[in-house]
């Protein structure tokens, strides 16, 4: 069979820096080809260089890029415009910012149709409807006249796919199409892509960092590292017998649901007991700002967290898990209910009394880039809590403690005199953990601390958290959407749905024998390595 797209010796440079380093591969008609790699490995740049959509300061070198024997490198910018969207469609990662907020859905699809076809107006409308039906958007007739903000994230991604399909392309490039979506929506979108591919026999080039997801959908997989193609092969053969060390390392770092199976269940003293905890945001209307209703972000949640154990709080975006975490720390207003940490009701305190008790509960945030003041030295950041709560400690002792903490989280002592921006995402997350540990807390709320990190870095951070728990006996409330991480780390699991906890139990029980329908749906949607297509 003749390849649809063949890339020969492609390199992309930014000045001295090489982001794509001499890679060659082929994509055949009707197949699903997946390019996997961690962030910064050059996967997106490879896709963009095929369409010559690279940033201005990038230099592209390649022997040839053939689309059905037609060398794209020889095409002028004008001629490429006829190929982009017509013969090669593109779907981006973020459906929130990829659509124009001031144009209706129909207008945005018609825009593409007008560029590539010469349909009369009625035919355009008819085609839009067909496309929306094809991407299984509910009530397509009504949606056509709506604006992007009226759609949910998953629906927007469906519209993006419809736009990409409008030109009836031979190749669809999907660049991390489901990364910003919830796991159940992700399963739906992948199913949709697979269906469309089977209907139209178009080739699908999937770019992703998620090995499990890729193993469920792809026919062939190529692994990229530092701009190089390290290994490629057929699915499932490649992941069953990985040859290259990097592929093996990636697979080993992948959190597995099975890893929880021999975790013993033992009852301990509860450290944190939460009863009927609520966070309501009032909705005010009218000139007197009367409260007409509430947004029930957290709606009557009760659970216990045992000493020295990890409770994972799982749920999709918008279910109120982050609000619950911050509410427990008394960082947001509008919470009610009883929170007892080691017998102490933090929520009944205020002012200085509250400040003094803050040390017992700490938090580690999701985004390692916004969780540290860019204007402060790492040493000052870690010492901040000591400064505030233990002003009696002398400067020298404080510095020794900070150095000790840095060693404990696996960073060099010299980090003390450096700024946060000099560190990578994983290192920053280590600094944040050190900052939380500085005041010797009994409980650390971890708010998706690994979801912004690459899979290998994620594995290291999970390892670090486990190790710290063994050494200090600290408890974790681990907020996450990733069941793999839950299985690696948690003792107990609480599943949250629309502000309520729908299922609580020991990790083996919940993951292997989920009782609640929502938990079953969530677990069913999680892509598993070597599993069947979702």
């Amino acid at each position, binding site marked *: 069979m003749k390849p649809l797209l063949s890339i020969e010796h492609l390199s992309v440079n930014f000045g001295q820096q090489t982001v794509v380093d001499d890679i060659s591969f082929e994509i055949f008609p009707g197949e699903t080809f997946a390019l996997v790699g961690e962030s910064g490995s050059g996967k997106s740049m490879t896709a963009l260089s095929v369409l010559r959509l690279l940033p201005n300061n990038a230099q592209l070198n390649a022997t040839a890029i053939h689309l059905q024997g037609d060398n794209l490198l020889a095409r002028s910018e004008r001629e490429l415009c006829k190929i982009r969207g017509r013969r090669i469609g593109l779907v981006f990662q973020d459906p929130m910012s990829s659509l124009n907020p001031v144009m209706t859905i129909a207008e945005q699809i018609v825009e593409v149709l007008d560029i590539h076809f010469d349909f009369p107006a009625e035919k355009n409308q008819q085609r839009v409807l067909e496309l929306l039906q094809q991407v299984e958007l509910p009530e397509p007739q009504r949606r056509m006249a709506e604006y992007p903000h009226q759609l949910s994230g998953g629906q927007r991604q469906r519209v993006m796919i419809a736009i990409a399909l409008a030109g009836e392309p031979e190749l669809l490039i999907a660049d991390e199409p489901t990364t910003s979506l919830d796991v159940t929506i992700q399963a739906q979108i992948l199913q949709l892509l697979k269906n469309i591919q089977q209907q139209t026999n178009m080739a699908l080039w999937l770019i992703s960092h998620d090995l499990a997801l890729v193993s469920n959908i792809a026919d062939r997989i190529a692994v990229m590292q530092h701009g190089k193609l390290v290994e490629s092969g057929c699915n499932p053969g490649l992941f069953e017998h990985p040859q290259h060390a990097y592929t093996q390392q990636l697979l080993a770092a992948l959190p597995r649901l099975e890893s929880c199976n021999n975790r013993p269940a033992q009852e301990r003293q509860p450290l944190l007991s939460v009863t009927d905890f609520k966070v309501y945001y009032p909705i005010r209307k009218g000139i007197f700002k009367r409260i007409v209703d509430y947004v029930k972000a957290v709606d009557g949640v009760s659970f216990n967290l045992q000493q020295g154990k990890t409770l994972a709080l799982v749920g999709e975006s918008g279910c109120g898990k982050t609000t619950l975490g*911050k509410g427990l*720390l008394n*960082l947001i207003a509008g919470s009610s209910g009883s929170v007892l940490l080691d017998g102490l009701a933090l929520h009944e305190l205020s002012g200085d009394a*509250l*400040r*003094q*008790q*803050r*040390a017992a*509960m*700490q*938090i580690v*945030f999701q*985004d390692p880039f*916004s*969780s*540290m*003041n*860019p*204007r*402060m*030295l790492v040493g000052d*950041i870690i010492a*901040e*809590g000591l*400064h*505030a*709560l233990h002003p009696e400690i002398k400067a020298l002792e404080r510095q020794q403690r900070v150095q000790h903490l840095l060693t404990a989280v696996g960073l060099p002592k010299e980090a003390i005199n450096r*700024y946060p*921006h000099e560190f990578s995402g994983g290192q920053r997350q280590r600094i*944040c953990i050190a*900052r*939380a540990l*500085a*005041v010797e807390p009994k409980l650390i709320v971890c708010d998706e601390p690994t979801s912004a990190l690459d899979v290998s870095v994620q594995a290291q951070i999970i390892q670090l958290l486990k190790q710290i728990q063994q050494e200090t006996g600290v408890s974790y409330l681990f907020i996450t959407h990733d069941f793999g991480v839950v299985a690696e780390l948690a003792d107990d699991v609480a599943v949250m749905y629309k502000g309520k906890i729908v299922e609580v139990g020991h990790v083996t029980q919940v993951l292997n024998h989920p009782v609640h329908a929502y938990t079953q749906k969530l677990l069913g949607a999680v892509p598993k390595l070597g599993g069947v297509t979702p």
Partner: protein
Amino acid sequence: MVMLWTDALIYLLLLTLAALGFYLRGKEHIKRPLQKISSSKVGMVSLVVLLFFVLIGLLDSIHFIPSNSKNNEIISVLDYWATPLREHGEKTYSAPFATTLYSKEMQTLPDGTAQFGYPTLRFGGSHLTDPTTQLLPDLLKKTAYGLFQGASLSSFFMLLLFSLSTKQRERFKRSATAKTVWAVIFFIVSLSYTLVYLSAYYHVLGTDKVGEDVFYQAIKSIRTGLVLGTLTTLIMLPMAIIFGILAGFFRGWVDDVIQYLYTTLNSIPSVLLIAASILMVQVYMAKHEADYTSVIVRADMRLLFLCLILGVTSWTGLCRLLRAETLKLREMEYVQAAQALGVKQSMILLRHILPNVMHIVLISVVLDFSSLVLAEAVLSYINIGVDPTTYSWGNMINGARLEMARDPIVWWSLSAAFVFMFALVLAANLFADVVQDAFDPRRAGND
């Protein structure tokens, strides 16, 4: 030595700047943008021009009563050095480098006959015996001589500096920016020396209605412009920073009160407020005449109040910006982490919020400076600006505007004010651009 109110504030400002510089010295996040500024040609050249203006302004801010003074007149160091310029008054308008007045009048010749013609100037070109033939050669000769002297003077000092400091020499050899900066310094020193040299013999920029040297007026106006630009910012900054950060951080009723305040203030036409307050100062000084005997003290008081009222009316813009930025920052995770660590709110404001809004403050200070210099010109035009006896570009323009209709036109007052103001504002704007680029954290990553 006499210290006027604005002088005192200028010294205070200098001290604050020095203290700030001392505090920020060696701080990594300040050093990086500063290095970026110092490697930018445009930035450094505009800084040199600005510093030259500042130097003149500072010389004009050291006031004293000379020992040989007849009527206890307060003068500045600049006045003292420019005594010839100050005292070489003519009768009325004369064009630049002219030897006669601009308009004909009846004059009595030595032999007693009356003649209608251009009277010769008392000082401008008075060393010439036959102005009609000697003027041009003398002018060329003196310009060349002045340029030569100025150039040799500046080259002498530059060579002296390079021979003494190896560091400067190395920098000059290596960096293109240093070469440009020194070239600009060389040019400015030579040019100003030539102008000063020429102004001893001629009125370089002509004279105005009452025969005062326009070059002197333009130079004296520099201080007024700088005082207005800097002192107003000094008054406005604390209000903008404190109110803006408090409103953004505490929200609730604090935010409501502060927003109410600046929305109200913003909806009053500031010209009205300025006019009213200037009038109040006038009345106050008229009532306490004993305390304000000297003309220059009265003028200074009015200048100070103009700064005050401009400051009070102009803090709202920056305050809004800072409030918005603080609203964003207070939701940042590092602020929440600090709260979780039990850090006091005052410390959060000081350590987490304030340093992270400083780039906005810095940028808007430099931008506001130029708009304030221009505002003075507009206010003087409608007679609510500085005192009519204060030298300012606004007053120069205001005085010259009536002569625009005259034929032949009197263009030099207006042009001189324009050129000086333009140079200062352009330098400040270019510098502001470079500062903005250097301190913008979004650009910090890609260099």
